[in-house]
């Protein structure tokens, strides 16, 4: 695969965009909701405590799973679209 192939360049850019978006969500649920923004969303009750606590102990883990499967699914489609998938 040559580095100057137009398709290859766009494939890589699409991958970077997808990674960037995923990492924003990754940071938002863990460092955001679960830690830094917890006081801001403290008013939302969840089972005897607040939403930030839930994100810290369970919500962020569930989000991580969704993020990885979403990434794998989208990337496998990108592979095919740009013709860089394995036979």
């Amino acid at each position, binding site marked *: *695969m*040559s*580095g100057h192939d137009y398709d*290859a360049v766009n*494939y*890589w850019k699409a*991958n970077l965009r997808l*990674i960037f978006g*995923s*990492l924003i969500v*990754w940071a938002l649920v*863990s*460092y955001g909701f*679960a*830690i*830094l923004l*917890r*006081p801001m969303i403290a008013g939302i009750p*969840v*089972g*005897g*405590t*607040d939403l*930030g*606590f*839930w994100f*810290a*102990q*369970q919500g*962020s*883990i*569930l989000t*991580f*799973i969704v*993020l*990885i*499967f979403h*990434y*794998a699914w989208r*990337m*496998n489609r990108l*592979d095919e679209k740009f*013709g*860089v*998938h*394995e036979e």
Partner: protein
Amino acid sequence: MDQFIINLLFVGGSFALYIGIAIWAKAGSTSDFYVAGGGIHPITNGAAIGADWMSAASFISMAGLIAAGGYANSTFLMGWTGGYVLLAMLLAPYLRKFGKFTVPEFIGDRYYSQNARLVAVICLIVASVTYVIGQMAGAGVAFSRFLEVDATLGLIIAAVVIFLYAVMGGMKGITYTQVAQYCVLIVAYTIPAVFISIQLTGNPIPGLGMFSTHTESGLPLLTKLNQVITDLGFNEYTADVDNKLNMVLFTLTLMIGTAGLPHVIIRFFTVPKVADARWSGGWALIFIALLYLTAPAVASMARLNLMTTIYPDGTAAAPIEYDERPQWVREWEVTGLIQYEDKNNDGRIQLYNDVPSFEEEAEARGWEGNELVVNRDILVLANPEIANLPGWVIGLIAAGGLAAALSTAAGLLLAISSAISHDLIKGRINPAISDKGELLAARISMAVAIVVATYLGANPPGFAAQVVALAFGIAAASLFPALMMGIFSKRVNNKGAIAGMLSGLVFTLAYIFVYKGWLFIPGTNNLADIPENWVLGISPLSIGAIGAIVNFAVAFTVSNATEEPPIEIQELVESVRYPRGAGGATDH
């Protein structure tokens, strides 16, 4: 049936299974030995990663840490799972495409430098050896508690079992035993948790029970727990933390460290295709989450159970009399992991938080100090006894704890031995070695690594408790940035990468040693390890994330000041980015 016989049946049965797998999955080539022939299904690999990753620390210690720290220790839950997002998106697919056997091999090829490869080998060995000591020690403890044998003898039994399947089967044997070990450990962890959740909340799913109503009081479980422990002078379980910078950095260090630990990364080399490496990450996290979503429930419920055991009539009434303590307290007292001292000679057990703010109330009640010390590591192991579950559940917990320790130890030992046989012996000393010769070298390295790990597990250095911080700090500050830049930047060259790895490493080690003692030798620390002394409130455990930033910054600066990498290296970077043409993991 006697509990000892039941434990023996469960542990012996699981060990027989592992050895049976070893005989079935014998490695015939270096490809079998290093990457299980590269033909592992992503779901199988996900389960193997789960067992590889979840160590004695996850199985035994984590729930206890959360029970003691409440919200503040959520860092372990997020840190030890969030790293998989980084792995699945930033490292695993590209390293699988690169298609070689070891992590240092990628660093050596990408940075066209045998010295870079050597630095990576050293980082790998230090991080993995420190990690494996804890696993071996954990296996020894589990043996001595459940099989009533001497811890050293237990350790030797465990080492012989690992020897059988790891030396014979290499990655191939380890993969299939890890899948079996995952099944054992997840069943062992979940069953007691389900029963406890039903007893306390009526909800059979512990992760949901934790956020539902405590049947007895009619209050939400966490509200009830907060009430009980604040009555006794403890902080609220769900209380927020003040030092958020440190909490963020500690979580980040665990995440980056997780993604940079070689024994996890090499598991991604065993799947057939790049797409499978991506799926593997997701499956791995599902298998890990089954335990990690249950752990906080185990933590909060066990904490509440402990408190209501000691204060059966509520916190306002007198605590339980020492002579009426339940059987499980008696049994754990024998091990010294529960200690009682009747400070005010009233024959009762006063368990409370001995802090100045609670002094007045304690005095009014005639209490003269906290009288019960419970080692937090026993929480998961004692869970079935606390919930009055039948003997076979205790046997299952014993087999589960051993499965967690052995599976992680085997993965670490494989990472160490392949770095020695492939990166040092074949890479540096004798590049002309035949496949058969290398396979023999790999087996001998594995055997030596097991002997060393067993010795260190039986005689853990005094700093054993400190070294996990070291493993994550090193992985985060040295390996992860070098791997990531190797894929995402064509500009970072050999000089930049080596300068970056060394400065990240030295910076991280220096910060840890200033507070923990140089090379962990007691008394050589320059500053006491207390929050007041930490720079900007950053604990030595959290410094790996800053070390990673130092690594990135130095690598980019040095690279930009020196020449571009050769054109064939830029083409190599280009090629790992596109899945087409991956083929099996190879030697050439």
